[in-house]
């Protein structure tokens, strides 16, 4: 009889438990998305007949759902092609505008000594923790009154304001890591501040700028509340998120067709994510150590 050895028992337990947990976690993370893709390829009747099928039956794969969901309503579809266009316009517009605003802002907060510089970043970050529903009320009222609610431009402006704070925070952290001596050397050679910024710090900050752009794109592409408040009455301006949520409530559109819509909504994000996962993970946790 061996003696009671806590260490050995625990080691053996965890040796079994650990792979089991990893499999479980993978399952809960991936299965919903697998199920999404699966349903998007199965005909509705077959889903109703056999809801438990884990893969499509032989010869059952059907791309018709994608055609249905992309076609414009005039052709009997759901018009997702138009929604995709809207989502792209808003997301790309948000990225470009927010970078134009945030790069100089972040640079200033990181490098230049001016009155109120510390307070500014604190205030901006505070914005991030505000209930967006609180902000939604006055913006809803304001854009209704200037009759810009329902336009993509209105939504774009709101998005830029929402992400500016986070962008500045992320970019500033990166500018802080670029040695100031590089710019000082440029100043010796007669560069002005702005020239030094453009030719020295900006190229060095490109990784951070790229990851920030992806991050902002994802936020704008995924956003739901403001799209709902601003665009719901104007179907031609719906984003993919809004379109999917609005059509999900109706009985006429088959679930499998909407699953195709979900795949279309999710796919760009997943692709971008796997493409940039390393940068993004770093960007998200930047500053975590200090916290």
């Amino acid at each position, binding site marked *: 009889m061996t003696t009671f050895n806590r260490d050995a028992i625990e080691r053996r337990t965890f040796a079994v438990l650990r792979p089991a947990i990893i499999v479980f976690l993978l399952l809960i993370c991936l299965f919903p998305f697998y199920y999404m893709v699966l349903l998007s390829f199965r005909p509705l009747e077959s889903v109703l007949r056999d809801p438990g099928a884990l893969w499509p039956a032989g010869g059952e794969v059907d791309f018709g759902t994608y055609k249905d969901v992309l076609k414009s309503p005039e052709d009997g579809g759901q018009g997702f092609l138009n929604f995709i266009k809207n989502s792209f316009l808003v997301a790309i517009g948000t990225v470009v505008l927010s970078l134009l605003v945030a790069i100089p802002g972040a640079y200033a907060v990181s490098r230049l000594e001016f009155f109120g*510089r510390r307070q500014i970043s604190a205030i901006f970050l505070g914005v991030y923790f505000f209930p967006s529903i609180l902000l939604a009320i006055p913006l809803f009222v304001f854009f209704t009154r200037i009759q810009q609610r329902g336009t993509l431009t209105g939504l774009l402006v709101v998005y830029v304001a929402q992400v500016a704070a986070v962008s500045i925070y992320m970019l500033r952290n990166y500018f802080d890591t670029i040695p100031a001596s590089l710019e000082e050397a440029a100043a010796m050679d007669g560069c002005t501040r702005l020239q030094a910024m453009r030719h020295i710090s900006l190229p060095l900050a490109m990784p951070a700028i790229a990851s920030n752009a992806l991050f902002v794109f994802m936020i704008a592409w995924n956003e739901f509340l403001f799209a709902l408040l601003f665009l719901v009455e104007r179907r031609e301006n719906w984003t993919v998120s809004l379109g999917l949520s609005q059509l999900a409530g109706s009985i006429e559109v088959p679930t499998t067709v909407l699953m195709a819509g979900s795949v279309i909504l999710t796919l760009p994000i997943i692709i971008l994510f796997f493409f940039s996962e390393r940068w993004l993970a770093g960007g998200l946790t930047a500053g975590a150590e200090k916290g």
Partner: protein
Amino acid sequence: MTVSGPTAPAGATEEAPDPVQRDRRYRPGRSAKAREDRRTGYLLITPTVVIVFAMVVLPILWTFSLAFQHVRLLNLRKTGFIGEYSLDNFTNVLTSPGFVDALVTTLVYSVAGTACAIGLGLVAALALRKPFRGRGLVRACMLIPYVAPVVAATFVWTTMLNPQFGIVNHYGTTLLGWNDPIAFLSSSKPISPFGINLHVSQSLLTVILFEGWRSFPFAFLFLTARLQAIPESLEEAAVVDGAAPSQRFRHIVLPQLLPTIAVLTVLRFIWTFNNFDDIYLLTGGSAGTQVVAVRVYDYLINRGDIGAAAAQALVLAAILAVLVTVYLKLFGRSEEVA
């Protein structure tokens, strides 16, 4: 030495040649550079300040004004900053049936959702701590629920949990022996494990689990980053001393993680407390899941009562501010030591 312009703050360096100041700050060329930096700084920060001020700060101030006026969607065009101010909205909102319930639901949802997310994130971070082949890919997969669009995620969940053709109810009734399919997202039946009524409806439990599923990657990411920073020598020493894995976790790893967990708790609590999308998309606020954010939306859009919506949103923000302040007062001090 010229007098500095009106824009320069008082006590700027270019004034009197006080010996101390001269020593510390006054060097030839330095002040001109400082002044130029300041000017460039203002120039560069202006676009951000303008857009954040116009689209965030002013609107928040305007919410206060709206909350004290009788503003409805119908008479919107006639309302301005100047109007009849009263506390009516607040008294109506605070005494209206369902407000306290919504507040309790919000609290239960935020606390339980935060706990689920951090708990699951911790388990995931620990399980994926030791390297193995393909770990990078597995880690990336862990983040998918967090980056996926909320509308797509909620739509898949509602379909999976559908009582008629959802896969969960299908296997629940055929494999697990459930008598009837469960209406996960529309049942207001309270759950009562071991006969204790928790006043939490089945639907509320479902949205809490959804929140845990969707947000655990965030906790996982932060905890993984922190785990990597723990020096290996500490644990190696503990192994030599014969400490079992659970003892090493309890006495070495956990104390290192606590500050990160504390920060995560604040962040997740704030975001869950303010969350609108998830519950609106999953249940629309029915079946005992109406949180305050969804209630505000209901007042704003369905009832068209802007004043009451604004008052409720302010109450929500105020309660959140109080809770976070209390938390930081209670735990903030010990954090600095840790």
